[in-house]
């Protein structure tokens, strides 16, 4: 192998030299130095390619987010505009924009619960559902829909029931928030989710679904099925 051939090979794939190239490197100090410099260059290239990954991307990857990704900003703007223009909000309080609200915390919590909000015909283990309900001091009437996931989760310092219920509108997440009062129903749309937090019992019930799901009927029905 000639020096020029070696440099073409090493310049294209310095980490995988063939037998001939390796032999040439061992007998040609100039080409060995070229290879060394190329490997140093590759280290610099690698360092440059490793751009910082936004924190949101590094930590909030769950099937929830995978399945129902964050709404593109422009799409969200269009959605917000159409809602603002066409829907009478009535007594509902529409929450929008950046905030550290109950709604935002609920969505954030969703992003840490892997593999739950998916359409399935497999019910959660009955004893698990019972245990979660019991800990939360609630019951969920069967007319809410089939429970496919039940877990007691820590939320804002409290242990709360976190359920996924299979409704006719698709799977929705239900969080029973005994210690979180809201003065009126709160609607929100964030990170690919739409949701409603309804005053219920001593606190509230949050119902979330992926963007596009019509929660107007489902949320009230599911929340009403929670027996305190």
């Amino acid at each position, binding site marked *: 192998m000639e*020096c*020029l051939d070696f*440099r*073409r*090979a090493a*310049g*294209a*794939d310095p980490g*995988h030299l063939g037998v001939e190239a390796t032999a040439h490197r061992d007998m040609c100090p100039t080409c060995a130095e*070229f290879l060394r*410099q*190329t490997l140093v*260059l*590759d280290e*610099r*290239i*690698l*360092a*440059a*390619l*490793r*751009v*910082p*990954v*936004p924190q949101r*991307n*590094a930590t909030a*990857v*769950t*099937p929830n*987010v*995978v*399945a*129902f*990704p*964050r709404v*593109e*900003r422009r799409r969200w703007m269009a959605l917000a505009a159409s809602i603002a223009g066409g829907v009478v909000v009535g007594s509902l309080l529409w929450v929008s924009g950046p905030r550290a609200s109950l709604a935002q915390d609920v969505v954030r919590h969703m992003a840490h619960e*892997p*593999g739950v909000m*998916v359409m*399935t015909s*497999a019910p959660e283990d009955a004893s698990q559902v019972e245990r979660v309900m019991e800990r939360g001091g609630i019951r969920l009437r069967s007319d809410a829909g089939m429970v496919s996931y039940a877990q007691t989760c820590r939320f804002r310092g409290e242990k709360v029931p976190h359920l996924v219920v299979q409704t006719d509108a698709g799977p929705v997440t239900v969080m029973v928030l005994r210690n979180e009062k809201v003065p009126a129903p709160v609607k929100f749309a964030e990170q690919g989710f739409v949701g409603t937090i309804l005053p219920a019992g001593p606190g509230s019930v949050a119902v979330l679904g992926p963007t596009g799901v019509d929660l107007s009927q489902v949320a009230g029905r599911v929340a009403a099925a929670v027996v305190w």
Partner: protein
Amino acid sequence: MNAPFAGKHGESAFARLCDELRPDLYRFAFWLARDRQVADDVVQEALLRAWRSRGSLAETAAVKPWLLTIIRREHARLFERKRFKTVQVDELIGSESPELAAEEVQETMDVRRAIFALEDDYREPLVLQVLMGYTTDEIATQLGLTQGAVLTRLFRARQKLRKQLGLAATGEED
């Protein structure tokens, strides 16, 4: 057919895998688009498509190349829909601060600027090789090129970077 990502257990496994791969996926998308917002959108859309089709995957090892393929297509699709304005490299680098530029040493920024300036045909195989650890054979498959073409592009990509960075030439012109 073996379907490691079917069923409830498979869903969780797929989610974990996506979680692990996401930094790589984001970076790959970023270097395709050279834009954080676009990269973010592309990854989100790609993962959505992947999630819907995960049942068709027969083996875990196939996930990464499959996801990269989806990202490439998603990026191309997005690019077809929207004509991005042409920007200068310095403007591009500048627009990334402070997230991208913060705390980075000057040397890394210089190399990053040089990579930004590479044509797509040279930048993409280089990213696949150096960042993703692909072999030239795998890159050829991924990009639909011959292995010879990939080797040529990789060689020229490094040539151009050397030139941009003021390093010694290698004896062959571009």
